[in-house]
């Protein structure tokens, strides 16, 4: 009984909380299924603001440890020599905005809210003399793989209040719980911010294969071998008949 009262009380409070907010948004598909037919996906962020302003939308995957290596010539041969390790690099990072971010806010403000590829905090272990070159190579490679997309004018306004942004996940995007963030700027200052999770998860056959390979590694290996032997034998059988 008391629980029901709690729920009622909460429901009564909700409209007040919502009215106080300058910004509200949601995701069309908060659960993205990575099936065997997965070729990438679109995350559509849509919402409303209370009055006009600029919007910056980001989508960020969980961090991964990444090692960046640089080749150097040794006795005429190109070998990996220097290496810089980054313990926490987002597996995917997308940013979209109503106009170029440097027009929306001053660099210090963007840095404080860690908005944009330049403001990604990428701490490195064993930083060499030219950490900047390694950092640039890291971002360049991620962008080339479609994992750090930056479509700057990709937040579209539908009238003065409604907005919509489409962020593209490539087929090689990592799985995990992503965070979608929307920042509302007015006069170069953040006046509203909201966050919501987006789950990218393997489902169906691809999820089962991964789980089986992890849980029963020896059995998985044996089955893989048996399967290959069978396929080889079947092929021979088919060809013998002809």
């Amino acid at each position, binding site marked *: 009984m008391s629980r029901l009262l709690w729920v009622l009380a909460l429901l009564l409070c909700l409209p007040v909380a919502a009215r106080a907010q300058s910004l509200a948004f949601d995701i069309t598909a908060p659960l993205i299924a*990575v*099936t*065997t*037919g*997965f*070729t*990438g996906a679109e995350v559509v962020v849509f919402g409303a603001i209370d009055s006009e302003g600029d919007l910056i939308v980001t989508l960020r995957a969980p961090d*991964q*440890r*990444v*090692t*960046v*290596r*640089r*080749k*150097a*010539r040794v006795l*005429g*041969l*190109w*070998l*990996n020599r220097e290496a810089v390790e980054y313990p926490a690099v987002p597996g995917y990072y997308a940013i979209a905005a109503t106009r170029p971010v440097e027009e929306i806010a001053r660099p210090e403000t963007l840095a404080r809210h860690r908005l944009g590829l330049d403001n990604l905090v990428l701490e490195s272990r064993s930083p060499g003399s030219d950490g900047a070159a*390694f950092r640039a*190579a*890291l971002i*360049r*490679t*991620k962008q080339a793989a479609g994992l750090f997309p930056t479509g700057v004018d990709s937040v579209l306004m539908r009238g003065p209040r409604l907005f919509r942004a489409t962020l593209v996940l490539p*087929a*090689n995007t*990592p*799985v995990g719980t992503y965070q979608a963030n929307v920042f509302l700027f007015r006069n170069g200052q953040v006046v509203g911010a909201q966050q919501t999770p987006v789950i990218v998860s*393997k489902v169906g*056959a*691809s*999820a089962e*294969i*991964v789980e089986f*390979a*992890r849980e029963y*590694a*020896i059995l*998985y*290996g*044996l089955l*893989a*071998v048996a*399967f*290959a*032997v*069978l*396929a*080889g*034998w*079947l*092929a*021979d059988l088919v*060809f*013998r008949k002809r």
Partner: protein
Amino acid sequence: MQLYLPIAEMSVNVLLILGMGGLVGFLSGLFGVGGGFLMTPLLIFVGVPPTVAVGTQANQLVGASVSGVLANLKRGGVDFKMGGVLVAGGLVGSVIGVWLFSVAKQFGQIDFVISVTYVVMLGSVGALMLNESLRAILKRRKDNSAQGKLHQHTWLHGLPLKMRFPKSRLYISALAPLGLGLMAGILVAIMGVGGGFFMVPAMIYVLGMPTSAVPGTSLFQIIFVTAATTLLHAVATQTVDVMLALLLLIGGVVGAQFGGRIGGRLRGEQMRFALAVIVLLVCLKLFADLIITPDDLYSLSLPGAK
């Protein structure tokens, strides 16, 4: 047509992978090489993580080798006794190879060791085979009636533990194929390939086996080596992608059947000449990668890789 690979965590074009499997399978059935020295670079080229490429193609090679052995069996080209001795040596060799691999890894230069091993092995084996097969082809042109000895007698024939291999028409010391299998096993562990490109010429030139029996026997040996490698990767690195292996298998087993058939019609020296050319081309490509300034000096690796 795209398919998402669960372990490799990427999406690939099905037809492209089928075609790659078919091409490498064809060479596999033709020459009795596993084709790993071709498949691994091809897979990495289309974006498959290197560790997944090595682990998965080992699995694919099991199927392709079975298909190849069966195709060769019909022509009577498998010496099971010889194959058994080679497998015994190979298993010991792979244990030594895994140990050497971890030592090189501790010194942080495993990439370099792998590249140089590839270039040296492919280069020397390819050059040797090219030279010999060219001579044989020229000799045949000049004098058709020449009937030389079955094989040269070397110091290898003076070793103890002599064994009869009726299929290969050989009476040699068991230590020779055992040692050969051992060396192949070491190379397999370091290079992550079946070792066929090394075994095939070695069986012809060192053991003196008749060329017709070589592909089947080599493939027979490769079945066991690649099965062991698949298991090892499935347990230790979890980089065997069965989806990718399935696609490669479909292409590979079909290709191997065609290769096995055409292989039966080719003359020994022609086959060795063609294999020598392919081996040398791959060697040149790898050597060029080592000395030509790369487009991008930087490379990324995730913790899962390596």
